[in-house]
Protein backbone atom coordinates (compact mmCIF):
# COMPACT_ATOMS: atom_id res chain seq x y z
CA UNK A 1 0.00 0.00 0.00
CA UNK A 2 1.45 3.34 -1.06
CA UNK A 3 1.41 6.01 1.62
CA UNK A 4 2.76 9.56 1.79
CA UNK A 5 4.43 11.22 4.78
CA UNK A 6 2.16 14.20 5.43
CA UNK A 7 4.20 15.56 8.35
CA UNK A 8 6.84 18.28 8.09
CA UNK A 9 9.73 16.16 9.38
CA UNK A 10 11.65 13.07 8.35
CA UNK A 11 10.20 10.08 10.18
CA UNK A 12 11.97 6.80 10.90
CA UNK A 13 9.62 4.00 9.85
CA UNK A 14 10.39 0.54 11.28
CA UNK A 15 11.58 -1.78 8.53
CA UNK A 16 11.71 1.01 5.97
CA UNK A 17 14.06 3.69 7.27
CA UNK A 18 13.90 7.49 7.05
CA UNK A 19 10.94 8.83 5.07
CA UNK A 20 11.13 12.50 4.18
CA UNK A 21 8.16 14.91 4.21
CA UNK A 22 6.08 14.37 1.08
CA UNK A 23 7.83 11.12 0.19
CA UNK A 24 5.74 8.15 -0.97
CA UNK A 25 6.72 4.69 0.26
CA UNK A 26 5.35 1.19 -0.03
CA UNK A 27 4.09 0.06 3.38
CA UNK A 28 2.41 -3.12 4.61
CA UNK A 29 -1.38 -3.06 4.99
CA UNK A 30 -0.96 -3.43 8.77
CA UNK A 31 0.95 -0.14 9.00
CA UNK A 32 -1.14 2.41 10.90
CA UNK A 33 0.25 5.87 11.58
CA UNK A 34 -1.65 9.17 11.42
CA UNK A 35 1.28 10.88 9.65
CA UNK A 36 0.90 8.61 6.63
CA UNK A 37 -2.03 8.83 4.22
CA UNK A 38 -2.86 6.44 1.43
CA UNK A 39 -2.13 7.79 -2.06
CA UNK A 40 -4.01 6.97 -5.25
CA UNK A 41 -2.79 4.22 -7.55
CA UNK A 42 -0.32 5.34 -10.15
CA UNK A 43 1.90 7.31 -7.76
CA UNK A 44 5.43 5.89 -7.80
CA UNK A 45 6.78 4.95 -4.35
CA UNK A 46 10.33 5.79 -3.30
CA UNK A 47 12.01 2.47 -4.18
CA UNK A 48 10.83 2.47 -7.78
CA UNK A 49 11.35 6.20 -8.33
CA UNK A 50 15.01 6.15 -7.40
CA UNK A 51 16.28 4.73 -10.69
CA UNK A 52 20.04 4.48 -11.10
CA UNK A 53 21.32 7.25 -13.30
CA UNK A 54 23.70 6.03 -16.02
CA UNK A 55 26.55 8.30 -17.00
CA UNK A 56 26.32 9.45 -20.61
CA UNK A 57 29.24 10.71 -22.58
CA UNK A 58 29.26 14.50 -22.94
CA UNK A 59 28.53 15.73 -26.42
CA UNK A 60 31.33 17.84 -27.84
CA UNK A 61 31.74 19.39 -31.21
CA UNK A 62 34.79 18.25 -33.13
CA UNK A 63 37.18 21.13 -33.53
CA UNK A 64 38.02 21.99 -37.09
CA UNK A 65 41.61 22.91 -37.63
CA UNK A 66 41.78 25.85 -39.93
CA UNK A 67 45.05 26.09 -41.55
Amino acid at each position, binding site marked *: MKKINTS*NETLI*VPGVGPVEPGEVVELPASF*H*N*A*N*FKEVPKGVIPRAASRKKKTKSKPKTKAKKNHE
Partner: protein
Amino acid sequence: MSNYLADRSYLAVKPQTDPAIPVIPTKFIPLISESIRVNPNFTADRRLKGLDWKSDELLKGARMVEGDLVIYADPDALAHILNLVYNRTGTTGNAADGYVHSFVPGEGKSYSLEISRGNYAQRIWGARGDNLKLDFQDNKMVATISIKALGQFYTASLAANLSGSVTSLVFKTDYDLRPSDGLKIGDILIVGGVEVTLTSVNVDGKTVGFGATSITASIGDPVFLKAQTPAFGTAREPLYLGNSLIGVAATSSAATTAAGAKATATPCYNFSTNLKNNLLDAPASGSSGPAVLLNQVKEADVELSRFFEDPTQYQKWLEFVKQAITLIATGRFIKSDFTTSEKLTIKYHKTKLATNEEPLDVGQYIFDKQKFEALYDSGDAKAVEIELIDRVYPDELSPSESS
Protein backbone atom coordinates in the same frame (compact mmCIF):
# COMPACT_ATOMS: atom_id res chain seq x y z
CA MET B 1 -1.44 -15.48 24.95
CA SER B 2 0.66 -12.49 23.82
CA ASN B 3 3.29 -10.77 25.93
CA TYR B 4 4.46 -7.25 25.26
CA LEU B 5 7.75 -5.51 25.97
CA ALA B 6 7.21 -2.04 27.45
CA ASP B 7 10.12 -0.72 25.35
CA ARG B 8 7.97 -1.03 22.23
CA SER B 9 5.39 1.37 23.65
CA TYR B 10 5.16 4.98 22.56
CA LEU B 11 3.93 8.40 23.59
CA ALA B 12 2.33 10.52 20.86
CA VAL B 13 1.03 14.07 21.30
CA LYS B 14 -0.82 16.77 19.35
CA PRO B 15 -2.41 20.07 20.40
CA GLN B 16 -6.19 20.44 20.03
CA THR B 17 -8.10 23.46 18.70
CA ASP B 18 -10.78 23.02 21.35
CA PRO B 19 -10.29 21.46 24.80
CA ALA B 20 -13.32 19.22 24.21
CA ILE B 21 -12.45 18.06 20.67
CA PRO B 22 -9.79 15.32 20.54
CA VAL B 23 -7.40 14.80 17.65
CA ILE B 24 -5.28 11.83 16.60
CA PRO B 25 -1.78 12.41 18.01
CA THR B 26 0.99 12.51 15.41
CA LYS B 27 4.16 13.64 17.21
CA PHE B 28 6.03 10.71 18.73
CA ILE B 29 8.18 11.57 21.74
CA PRO B 30 10.63 9.18 23.45
CA LEU B 31 9.28 8.34 26.89
CA ILE B 32 11.03 7.35 30.12
CA SER B 33 7.92 6.47 32.09
CA GLU B 34 4.26 7.33 32.51
CA SER B 35 1.65 6.94 35.21
CA ILE B 36 -1.47 8.40 33.63
CA ARG B 37 -4.49 6.54 34.90
CA VAL B 38 -8.23 6.78 34.94
CA ASN B 39 -9.44 6.88 38.52
CA PRO B 40 -13.19 6.26 38.70
CA ASN B 41 -12.95 6.67 42.50
CA PHE B 42 -15.05 3.55 43.04
CA THR B 43 -16.42 3.16 46.54
CA ALA B 44 -18.54 0.43 48.07
CA ASP B 45 -22.29 1.05 48.05
CA ARG B 46 -22.96 1.47 51.78
CA ARG B 47 -26.72 1.70 51.70
CA LEU B 48 -28.74 -0.42 54.14
CA LYS B 49 -29.76 -3.54 52.25
CA GLY B 50 -30.21 -6.12 54.94
CA LEU B 51 -26.67 -7.44 54.52
CA ASP B 52 -24.05 -8.26 57.11
CA TRP B 53 -21.37 -7.82 54.46
CA LYS B 54 -19.91 -4.41 53.68
CA SER B 55 -21.58 -4.09 50.29
CA ASP B 56 -22.79 -5.91 47.22
CA GLU B 57 -21.82 -3.25 44.71
CA LEU B 58 -19.45 -0.42 43.82
CA LEU B 59 -20.57 3.10 42.96
CA LYS B 60 -18.71 5.63 40.82
CA GLY B 61 -17.26 8.79 42.34
CA ALA B 62 -15.86 11.90 40.67
CA ARG B 63 -13.71 10.50 37.87
CA MET B 64 -10.20 11.78 37.30
CA VAL B 65 -7.80 11.17 34.41
CA GLU B 66 -4.37 12.18 35.65
CA GLY B 67 -0.78 11.14 36.11
CA ASP B 68 2.79 11.94 35.18
CA LEU B 69 4.85 11.76 32.02
CA VAL B 70 8.62 11.62 32.38
CA ILE B 71 10.88 12.40 29.42
CA TYR B 72 14.43 13.53 28.83
CA ALA B 73 14.14 17.24 28.09
CA ASP B 74 15.46 17.40 24.54
CA PRO B 75 14.63 20.79 23.01
CA ASP B 76 12.11 19.46 20.47
CA ALA B 77 10.11 17.42 22.99
CA LEU B 78 10.40 20.23 25.53
CA ALA B 79 8.54 22.55 23.15
CA HIS B 80 5.41 20.41 23.46
CA ILE B 81 5.84 20.00 27.21
CA LEU B 82 6.07 23.76 27.71
CA ASN B 83 3.11 24.20 25.32
CA LEU B 84 1.05 22.04 27.69
CA VAL B 85 1.92 24.16 30.70
CA TYR B 86 2.43 27.77 29.64
CA ASN B 87 1.09 30.17 27.03
CA ARG B 88 3.19 30.46 23.89
CA THR B 89 3.14 34.14 23.00
CA GLY B 90 4.95 33.84 19.70
CA THR B 91 7.59 32.15 17.56
CA THR B 92 10.25 33.74 15.38
CA GLY B 93 13.03 32.29 13.25
CA ASN B 94 13.11 29.69 10.55
CA ALA B 95 14.15 26.14 9.83
CA ALA B 96 17.77 27.07 9.05
CA ASP B 97 18.40 29.25 12.12
CA GLY B 98 16.05 27.47 14.49
CA TYR B 99 12.73 28.60 15.89
CA VAL B 100 12.55 30.83 18.98
CA HIS B 101 9.45 30.07 21.04
CA SER B 102 8.46 32.40 23.87
CA PHE B 103 6.37 31.14 26.78
CA VAL B 104 4.83 33.00 29.72
CA PRO B 105 2.64 31.82 32.59
CA GLY B 106 -0.90 31.42 31.26
CA GLU B 107 -3.29 28.88 29.80
CA GLY B 108 -1.35 26.18 28.03
CA LYS B 109 -2.75 24.24 25.10
CA SER B 110 -5.03 21.26 25.50
CA TYR B 111 -3.48 18.17 23.97
CA SER B 112 -4.50 14.73 22.85
CA LEU B 113 -2.02 12.14 24.07
CA GLU B 114 -1.70 8.51 23.08
CA ILE B 115 0.13 5.83 25.04
CA SER B 116 0.40 2.30 23.68
CA ARG B 117 0.56 -1.03 25.48
CA GLY B 118 1.21 -3.85 23.06
CA ASN B 119 -1.20 -3.62 20.15
CA TYR B 120 -3.54 -1.33 22.08
CA ALA B 121 -3.56 2.42 22.59
CA GLN B 122 -5.06 4.68 25.22
CA ARG B 123 -6.14 8.08 23.91
CA ILE B 124 -6.13 10.80 26.59
CA TRP B 125 -7.78 13.97 25.44
CA GLY B 126 -8.27 17.48 26.73
CA ALA B 127 -4.96 17.11 28.59
CA ARG B 128 -3.32 20.09 30.31
CA GLY B 129 -0.10 20.42 32.27
CA ASP B 130 -0.74 21.00 35.97
CA ASN B 131 2.84 20.94 37.21
CA LEU B 132 6.14 20.80 35.34
CA LYS B 133 9.30 19.77 37.15
CA LEU B 134 12.64 20.25 35.44
CA ASP B 135 15.70 18.80 37.15
CA PHE B 136 18.96 17.15 36.28
CA GLN B 137 19.56 13.45 36.82
CA ASP B 138 23.01 12.11 36.00
CA ASN B 139 23.73 15.35 34.04
CA LYS B 140 20.61 14.99 31.87
CA MET B 141 17.67 17.39 32.13
CA VAL B 142 14.52 15.44 32.96
CA ALA B 143 11.02 16.87 32.53
CA THR B 144 8.28 15.42 34.71
CA ILE B 145 4.90 16.83 33.79
CA SER B 146 1.79 16.14 35.83
CA ILE B 147 -1.15 15.87 33.50
CA LYS B 148 -4.87 16.27 34.09
CA ALA B 149 -7.29 15.43 31.28
CA LEU B 150 -10.97 15.67 30.44
CA GLY B 151 -11.36 12.11 29.20
CA GLN B 152 -9.89 9.00 27.69
CA PHE B 153 -10.66 6.07 25.37
CA TYR B 154 -8.86 2.75 25.78
CA THR B 155 -11.47 0.04 25.66
CA ALA B 156 -15.25 -0.19 25.69
CA SER B 157 -17.76 -3.00 25.28
CA LEU B 158 -20.50 -3.79 22.78
CA ALA B 159 -24.09 -2.91 23.56
CA ALA B 160 -25.47 -5.33 20.97
CA ASN B 161 -24.48 -8.56 19.22
CA LEU B 162 -22.70 -8.23 15.88
CA SER B 163 -23.17 -10.86 13.19
CA GLY B 164 -22.42 -10.90 9.48
CA SER B 165 -21.67 -7.74 7.51
CA VAL B 166 -22.08 -4.68 9.72
CA THR B 167 -21.31 -0.98 9.26
CA SER B 168 -21.60 0.33 12.82
CA LEU B 169 -21.49 -0.65 16.44
CA VAL B 170 -22.82 0.80 19.68
CA PHE B 171 -20.92 0.88 22.95
CA LYS B 172 -22.35 0.13 26.37
CA THR B 173 -22.61 3.15 28.66
CA ASP B 174 -21.51 1.52 31.94
CA TYR B 175 -18.32 3.60 32.02
CA ASP B 176 -19.77 6.81 30.62
CA LEU B 177 -22.90 7.97 28.82
CA ARG B 178 -20.57 9.03 25.99
CA PRO B 179 -18.08 6.14 25.75
CA SER B 180 -16.91 6.95 22.20
CA ASP B 181 -15.59 10.39 23.14
CA GLY B 182 -11.92 10.45 22.22
CA LEU B 183 -12.32 8.50 18.98
CA LYS B 184 -11.81 10.14 15.59
CA ILE B 185 -12.44 9.25 11.95
CA GLY B 186 -9.44 7.24 10.81
CA ASP B 187 -8.95 5.42 14.12
CA ILE B 188 -8.78 1.63 13.88
CA LEU B 189 -10.78 -0.42 16.38
CA ILE B 190 -10.29 -4.10 17.10
CA VAL B 191 -13.63 -5.87 17.61
CA GLY B 192 -14.18 -9.61 17.56
CA GLY B 193 -10.59 -10.01 16.41
CA VAL B 194 -11.32 -7.88 13.32
CA GLU B 195 -9.95 -4.42 12.57
CA VAL B 196 -12.30 -1.69 11.38
CA THR B 197 -11.35 1.84 10.32
CA LEU B 198 -13.78 4.45 11.60
CA THR B 199 -15.60 6.50 8.99
CA SER B 200 -17.89 8.24 11.48
CA VAL B 201 -18.19 9.00 15.20
CA ASN B 202 -21.81 9.74 16.00
CA VAL B 203 -22.75 12.81 18.02
CA ASP B 204 -24.71 10.50 20.32
CA GLY B 205 -21.38 9.60 21.92
CA LYS B 206 -21.83 5.83 21.67
CA THR B 207 -22.18 4.86 17.99
CA VAL B 208 -19.32 4.59 15.51
CA GLY B 209 -19.45 3.72 11.82
CA PHE B 210 -17.07 1.94 9.43
CA GLY B 211 -17.02 0.24 6.05
CA ALA B 212 -19.03 -2.98 5.70
CA THR B 213 -17.11 -5.69 7.59
CA SER B 214 -18.03 -9.23 8.61
CA ILE B 215 -17.83 -9.36 12.40
CA THR B 216 -19.02 -11.90 14.94
CA ALA B 217 -19.11 -10.58 18.51
CA SER B 218 -21.46 -10.61 21.48
CA ILE B 219 -22.90 -8.09 23.92
CA GLY B 220 -20.22 -7.15 26.44
CA ASP B 221 -17.28 -8.17 24.22
CA PRO B 222 -14.45 -5.65 24.54
CA VAL B 223 -13.52 -3.27 21.74
CA PHE B 224 -9.98 -1.86 21.67
CA LEU B 225 -8.27 1.12 20.07
CA LYS B 226 -5.47 -0.15 17.85
CA ALA B 227 -2.03 1.29 18.51
CA GLN B 228 -0.26 3.17 15.75
CA THR B 229 3.05 2.03 14.30
CA PRO B 230 5.37 4.58 15.90
CA ALA B 231 7.45 6.72 13.55
CA PHE B 232 9.83 8.97 15.42
CA GLY B 233 11.62 12.00 14.07
CA THR B 234 15.36 12.54 14.51
CA ALA B 235 16.33 11.75 18.09
CA ARG B 236 17.70 14.78 19.91
CA GLU B 237 19.99 14.81 22.92
CA PRO B 238 18.60 16.15 26.18
CA LEU B 239 19.90 19.39 27.61
CA TYR B 240 22.74 18.79 30.02
CA LEU B 241 23.69 20.31 33.39
CA GLY B 242 27.24 20.48 32.11
CA ASN B 243 26.12 22.81 29.32
CA SER B 244 23.94 24.96 31.57
CA LEU B 245 24.85 28.25 33.22
CA ILE B 246 22.95 29.79 36.12
CA GLY B 247 23.12 33.46 36.96
CA VAL B 248 22.00 34.87 40.31
CA ALA B 249 21.92 38.63 40.77
CA ALA B 250 19.89 41.51 42.13
CA THR B 251 17.94 42.04 38.90
CA SER B 252 16.78 39.80 36.07
CA SER B 253 18.88 41.58 33.48
CA ALA B 254 21.98 41.23 35.67
CA ALA B 255 21.20 37.57 36.29
CA THR B 256 20.83 36.95 32.56
CA THR B 257 24.13 38.70 31.92
CA ALA B 258 25.77 36.60 34.61
CA ALA B 259 24.38 33.43 33.04
CA GLY B 260 25.94 34.42 29.73
CA ALA B 261 29.44 33.32 30.67
CA LYS B 262 30.99 30.63 32.85
CA ALA B 263 33.19 33.19 34.62
CA THR B 264 30.20 35.12 35.95
CA ALA B 265 27.72 32.27 36.40
CA THR B 266 27.16 30.55 39.74
CA PRO B 267 28.31 26.91 39.74
CA CYS B 268 25.37 24.84 40.98
CA TYR B 269 25.66 21.18 41.93
CA ASN B 270 21.93 20.70 41.75
CA PHE B 271 19.15 22.63 40.05
CA SER B 272 15.46 21.89 39.87
CA THR B 273 12.35 23.93 39.34
CA ASN B 274 8.60 23.42 39.61
CA LEU B 275 6.16 25.42 37.50
CA LYS B 276 2.63 24.98 38.84
CA ASN B 277 -0.75 25.92 37.43
CA ASN B 278 -2.89 24.42 40.23
CA LEU B 279 -5.55 23.47 37.69
CA LEU B 280 -9.23 23.60 38.61
CA ASP B 281 -10.40 20.05 37.86
CA ALA B 282 -13.73 19.84 39.64
CA PRO B 283 -16.60 17.99 37.95
CA ALA B 284 -19.74 19.91 37.11
CA SER B 285 -23.22 18.94 35.97
CA GLY B 286 -23.09 17.17 32.64
CA SER B 287 -19.56 15.84 33.21
CA SER B 288 -18.48 12.71 35.10
CA GLY B 289 -14.91 13.96 35.12
CA PRO B 290 -13.51 17.48 35.12
CA ALA B 291 -15.85 19.87 33.34
CA VAL B 292 -12.99 22.15 32.33
CA LEU B 293 -9.31 22.50 33.26
CA LEU B 294 -8.45 26.06 34.13
CA ASN B 295 -5.42 27.68 35.72
CA GLN B 296 -5.93 28.86 39.22
CA VAL B 297 -3.23 30.79 41.06
CA LYS B 298 0.13 30.01 39.47
CA GLU B 299 3.40 29.52 41.34
CA ALA B 300 6.94 28.31 40.88
CA ASP B 301 10.01 27.47 42.89
CA VAL B 302 13.69 26.80 42.35
CA GLU B 303 16.01 24.53 44.32
CA LEU B 304 19.75 24.62 43.93
CA SER B 305 22.92 23.74 45.78
CA ARG B 306 26.17 25.66 45.62
CA PHE B 307 29.37 25.83 47.63
CA PHE B 308 29.11 27.70 50.92
CA GLU B 309 31.53 30.64 50.72
CA ASP B 310 30.30 32.86 53.53
CA PRO B 311 26.98 33.54 55.32
CA THR B 312 25.86 36.00 52.63
CA GLN B 313 23.12 33.73 51.37
CA TYR B 314 22.07 33.11 54.99
CA GLN B 315 21.79 36.88 55.45
CA LYS B 316 19.73 37.19 52.24
CA TRP B 317 17.45 34.49 53.54
CA LEU B 318 16.96 36.03 56.99
CA GLU B 319 16.37 39.47 55.52
CA PHE B 320 14.34 38.08 52.57
CA VAL B 321 16.39 39.93 49.99
CA LYS B 322 15.24 39.78 46.36
CA GLN B 323 17.43 37.75 43.99
CA ALA B 324 16.80 37.08 40.30
CA ILE B 325 17.80 33.79 38.70
CA THR B 326 18.38 32.93 35.05
CA LEU B 327 19.10 29.46 33.71
CA ILE B 328 20.56 29.12 30.21
CA ALA B 329 20.90 25.54 28.99
CA THR B 330 22.60 25.25 25.61
CA GLY B 331 22.35 22.26 23.32
CA ARG B 332 23.58 21.31 19.86
CA PHE B 333 24.23 23.79 17.08
CA ILE B 334 21.26 24.25 14.74
CA LYS B 335 22.66 26.42 11.95
CA SER B 336 25.28 24.90 9.70
CA ASP B 337 27.66 27.80 10.38
CA PHE B 338 27.44 27.16 14.14
CA THR B 339 25.95 30.57 14.91
CA THR B 340 22.71 29.36 16.50
CA SER B 341 22.14 26.59 19.01
CA GLU B 342 19.38 24.79 20.80
CA LYS B 343 18.81 26.78 23.97
CA LEU B 344 16.45 26.93 26.93
CA THR B 345 16.36 30.19 28.91
CA ILE B 346 14.28 30.46 32.06
CA LYS B 347 14.16 33.80 33.83
CA TYR B 348 12.85 34.13 37.35
CA HIS B 349 12.51 37.87 37.72
CA LYS B 350 12.12 37.92 41.50
CA THR B 351 12.88 35.17 43.96
CA LYS B 352 13.41 35.07 47.69
CA LEU B 353 14.84 32.30 49.76
CA ALA B 354 12.20 30.24 51.49
CA THR B 355 14.81 27.93 53.03
CA ASN B 356 18.59 28.05 53.22
CA GLU B 357 20.51 25.24 54.87
CA GLU B 358 24.23 24.80 55.40
CA PRO B 359 24.45 21.18 56.63
CA LEU B 360 27.70 19.80 58.01
CA ASP B 361 28.30 16.27 56.73
CA VAL B 362 31.40 14.29 57.65
CA GLY B 363 33.82 14.12 54.71
CA GLN B 364 31.76 16.55 52.61
CA TYR B 365 32.21 20.14 51.51
CA ILE B 366 29.75 22.62 53.00
CA PHE B 367 26.96 23.61 50.61
CA ASP B 368 24.24 26.23 50.61
CA LYS B 369 21.16 24.12 49.94
CA GLN B 370 18.55 26.61 48.87
CA LYS B 371 14.87 26.74 47.94
CA PHE B 372 13.67 29.93 46.30
CA GLU B 373 10.05 31.00 45.94
CA ALA B 374 9.48 32.57 42.51
CA LEU B 375 7.56 35.81 43.03
CA TYR B 376 5.88 38.37 40.84
CA ASP B 377 8.18 41.32 40.14
CA SER B 378 6.10 44.49 40.01
CA GLY B 379 8.90 46.46 38.34
CA ASP B 380 9.35 43.98 35.49
CA ALA B 381 5.64 43.05 35.57
CA LYS B 382 6.66 39.43 35.30
CA ALA B 383 7.28 36.40 37.45
CA VAL B 384 8.72 33.84 35.03
CA GLU B 385 9.45 33.85 31.32
CA ILE B 386 10.82 31.10 29.13
CA GLU B 387 12.45 31.11 25.71
CA LEU B 388 13.21 27.92 23.82
CA ILE B 389 15.22 27.67 20.61
CA ASP B 390 14.77 24.40 18.72
CA ARG B 391 13.74 22.92 15.37
CA VAL B 392 10.02 22.57 16.05
CA TYR B 393 7.84 24.21 13.41
CA PRO B 394 5.43 26.68 14.99
CA ASP B 395 2.43 24.99 13.37
CA GLU B 396 3.27 21.84 15.34
CA LEU B 397 2.53 23.79 18.50
CA SER B 398 -0.59 25.42 17.11
CA PRO B 399 -3.83 23.57 17.57
CA SER B 400 -5.21 21.84 14.51
CA GLU B 401 -8.26 19.76 13.99
CA SER B 402 -6.72 17.92 11.05
CA SER B 403 -5.38 14.52 11.91
